[in-house]
């Protein structure tokens, strides 16, 4: 979350992604950086125990949301 905010502030478009389990900590981190409205994408938990095909599916599923936050057409 911090990396996403710092990249945006450095002028590099960025979208932070976390699992839904980290929604509240992610929002707290955004507030800690003075960017309470920072938009980010969430994917279903977990990630760490998925195999590569499941990870790719997560990435495909979240891509439209990432593009929306970036302001691009999906």
């Amino acid at each position, binding site marked *: 979350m911090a990396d996403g905010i710092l990249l945006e502030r450095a002028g590099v478009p960025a979208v932070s992604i976390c699992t839904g389990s*980290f929604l509240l900590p992610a929002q707290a981190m955004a507030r800690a950086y003075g960017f309470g409205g920072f938009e980010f994408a969430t994917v279903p938990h977990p990630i760490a125990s998925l195999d590569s095909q499941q990870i790719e599916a997560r990435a495909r599923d979240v891509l439209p949301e990432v593009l929306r936050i970036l302001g691009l057409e999906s």
Partner: protein
Amino acid sequence: MPSGETTTQNDTPLADPAEIRRAMEYYADRGWTDGLPVVPVTESYLAEFLATTSRDPDEVLMPMPQLNRQCTVRLAAINAALAGCRPDYFPVVLAAWESLTREEYATRGIWQSTTGTAPLLIVNGPVRKRIGLNSQGNVFGSGFRANATIGRAIRLGAINALGLRPHQLDQATQGTPAKYTACIAENEEESPWPPLHAQFGLDPSDSAVTAMIIRSCIHIEARHTTVPEQLALDITGTISRTGALIHETISALVVLSPEHARLFSRAGWGQADLSEFIYTRAVHSRAELAAVGKDAIARQTRWRLPADHPDAVPDQAQASGTPDVVRVLNSAGAVLVVVAGANNAGVSAVIETFGPRGGPPAVVRVADPDMKQSERSGNTT
């Protein structure tokens, strides 16, 4: 009870209970507590804490730049007062913060981690007696104000100064009961060995705090043997458990009861001998690690995982001359040994400390309140 110790209603201080409750609820409503009531702090009460140190109230004790927060001397004092510390405990609290900062895992972000660690403080030297720190029976338990509140002062500082509230920036999956408070004193009087701070270069007449980030505290009840190798292997088995083996290697603090320490001492063992024994015997076979999916390590994080995982690379043992013998510890220095608890049974503890370690712990001298102001600065080892 002698008549002079009888408590009567006339001894109770004059205060409006409703006002006391209102103050307690105010702190709770603001989220400034660990869930338990705190002591209201006024400017004049805060001044009593700050008077025990010559340090600038605005001096930063622990920076936490990733959270845009820091713990200063003043914030440490406020939270020590909230925690129920007496002002004369504050030099120990200051040394604890300094030790935690030097220890580095907290400032690297471990207090935000799902791992759910807690800081453990070990206090050595004359300050233990001066402020009533317990080093004997129930040393990890309740009942002693100095132990209870000094440990709690760190937790409240983490919550209030650093913003590490659960469900927010503290993302611990389960945490540990030690997150309420974890502060012990070494039982130097009943130890056959040098105290922890003297093992690492301080004079035994110094007072010191050594902080460690811990995962858990595991109880070892071993009344069955007087053979040092058997007891040492029993302890080693607890340290070696695969559930603790998250990274390639781990570390531990062994807190021996005086009875266990003397068993080793009578056989001619020092603390370094016990550490060396544990280091050499804390091993798993490759097959044991394969059975729990921990026979390799991740390329980037060096966390253990199955050898057939796409990120897996061989561990260091795999490249050694004995690939089927995997050490749990990177050196004898990864096991520290202290003595605490009552001298009444063969009960000890293994503290699972965070990180591979092997280097010296962060031993920080407690500034002596009797010293002149000019002598108090530069109180680290």
